[in-house]
């Protein structure tokens, strides 16, 4: 009874999308965002291990990195960078759409982001399948002979297996995060269609946006470090 009366006592605004343990939309929204930023901090530290591995491998085998990265197609890497940067734009516009209460803007910008994310993965698929074809695989599976046979100059000094291991682990982990982001966006589209979001209640959309931007951020660093080594 007393719980009920304390709710009725606060000025009646208790929309159905306000969870029972929160007092106001403001509290709910800022809690959601704070939680997301903490999760992003965790993502930064997660990828830090991979970047540390990269730094050390590059310190140990500088000539390997110099030679091996030639076998990566920087044009495809640049194309992927453009895809992700554009997807960040469309994602930010989707959030803006929520702020101005436009279901259409929300929906179509998320669709655009999804398409660009898919494009990214398609490019990666082509890159990976070329590597597979040429035996430029990580660790044990690196097959220099196969590469040479295909006309690929794989007589790389140092430890090329390590370079490709780092390449696959870093882009693979990143790619997995892209895939997860796309899954989140599909669910977003369902919720948008359901009418869940408006200018007062869209923190879930904002949070998926924040996640997607971090994924873009990581690629911003991956691209020059892997594809543009000099």
């Amino acid at each position: 009874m007393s719980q009920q009366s304390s709710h009725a006592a606060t000025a009646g605004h208790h929309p159905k999308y306000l969870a029972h343990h929160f007092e106001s939309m403001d509290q709910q929204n800022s809690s959601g965002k704070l939680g997301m930023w903490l999760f992003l901090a965790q993502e930064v530290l997660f990828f830090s291990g991979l970047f540390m591995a990269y730094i050390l491998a590059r310190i140990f085998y500088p000539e390997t990195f110099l030679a091996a990265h030639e076998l990566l197609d920087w044009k495809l890497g640049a194309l992927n960078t453009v895809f992700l940067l554009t997807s960040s734009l469309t994602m930010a516009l989707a959030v803006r759409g929520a702020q101005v209460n436009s279901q259409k803007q929300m929906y179509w910008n998320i669709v655009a982001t999804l398409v660009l994310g898919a494009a990214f993965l398609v490019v990666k698929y082509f890159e990976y399948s070329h590597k597979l074809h040429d035996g430029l695989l990580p660790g044990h599976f690196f097959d220099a002979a196969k590469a040479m046979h295909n006309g690929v100059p794989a007589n790389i000094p140092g430890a090329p297996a390590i370079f490709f291991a780092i390449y696959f682990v870093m882009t693979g982990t990143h790619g997995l995060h892209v895939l997860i982001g796309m899954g989140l966006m599909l669910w977003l589209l369902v919720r948008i269609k359901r009418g869940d979001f408006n200018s007062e209640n869209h923190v879930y959309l904002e949070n998926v946006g924040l996640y997607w931007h971090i994924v873009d951020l990581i690629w911003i660093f991956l691209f020059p470090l892997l594809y543009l080594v000099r």
Partner: protein
Amino acid sequence: MESNRNSQLQSAQAATSGGAEPSYLTAKRGIWSWLATVDHKRIGLMYLVGVLGFFAVGGILALLVRTQLLGPTTGFSAAKQEWLFSGDTYNKLFTLHGAVMVFLVIIPSIPASLGNFFLPLMLGAKDVAFPKLNLMSFYIYIFGGALLLFSIYDGAVDTGWTFYTPYSSSSSSSVVSAVLGVFILGFSSILTGINFIVTIHKMRAPGQTWIRLPLFVWAQYATSVIQVLATPVLAITLMLLAIERTIGVGIFDPKLGGDPVLFQHFFWFYSHPAVYIMILPAFGVISEIITVNSRKEIFGYKAIALSSVAIAVIGFLVWGHHMFTSGQSELASAVFSFLTFAVAVPTAIKVFSWVATMYGGSLRMNSAMWYAQAFLFLFTIGGLTGLFLGTLSVDIHLHDTYFVVAHFHYVMMGGTMTAFVGALHHWWPKMTGRMLNEFWGKVSCFFVFVGFNLTFFSQFLLGTKGMPRRYANYLPEFQNLHQLSTYGSYILGLGFFITLLYMIQSLINGKKAPANPWEAKSLEWETDSPPIEHNFHTQPIVTHGPYDFPEIDHSMSTRGGH
């Protein structure tokens, strides 16, 4: 109307006679109401059962390890030179003991069970910020634990809980399933940390400023920050290890061109802050127990609160002190050794503050307070011996000996687990609505204290005499101390077993507990024992600090009898 909430309350009230709102234990019935609960108190209890269960598993493994060490080499078969377990089996036993205790027991112990239960209560809130995420964290914990234990079936890991390469990247044991289990457990830890930080920031009752928070909350806050920042590095480390094993990356394994010391950097970047995840909540608990049972405002509130944050930060700067003999550069070793001394300072500030709180206090020596005293003694020894190990030159001799084993058991078990059991005694009336038997509480504390010191003090001596850790057998000159340690461990086990017995007895027919048996001043004591589902009957408003005890009248004399 808000029909859902309405009908829930009505059905809950209908379930009890007299119209009084039922406690969280009885508000909803049936196994599904527990398994699908989003009530932080029920989730806390489920975690508690899990933690205690895994503690029993880890404890039995410990007793097996100690029993192995009763005899040096000869025993059953002089020809085979084996007593009880083979070397291989012994390696698997201590590995599992370590992994279970670290990841399934100590790290979640206070935060997941008591933190979950009491954080919202202490803040005057209805629940944590993300109740469904909380439930998910619990199931991730169970799933990760199951995977870790599955690794036993899969051949069992024999690398030690630290998974050092290159052995772990090439050993034929079930490293992958074990690290996968730990990887998953990490997510439980991270999500709980996020939940707690947001709860503390956003769900405080009106009037509850940061300096009116109980010190348990400050401790949980610092712990949660470490959980969020450090655990992902463990996750990536284990992921890289698993990948190294399967495709041969070549980052950790020297045969493939890697550096094994790198693994240790990656691993200890998490695992050193992890020990602060283990001890900070214990510090919070001790602050609560000591101040309530001294009936006195805690000495140095701000010092204790800020030192928790300081420990969290400095704790990230010292990980290399686990690697002094690993091949790390001398410069790095010197830097880490120097920084390690710094982390002792905020810790010592706390110990002095607790003692100063008791000085001139009106002491209630209940079993919780007995455990708190045991903590002060055991943790101080553990902490001081940490300084020995942090001293680079001394550590060259003591590294990988039983001195290290004794040190970390003093802090982790003598520290965290003692505080955990003490906390259970302190908050049992609130959680269950029953009182624990004080006499048997003190008896078990006595057995635990005596057993603990016999077990582990002898290990300090073993270590300085040169007994290496993780060895299944040893030279005959070490036998006396080993046997003393083993018999001590049986006494220690007995102590905890007694605790289990009277806790069960309390649940069956323990005396009913009042709302505030210890006359404490923090918010969790201002509601029923056990609390109702929504915690408080009306929204509490905070007007004073959590330790706002009246001045003690020292003029009252005890001479002359009453």
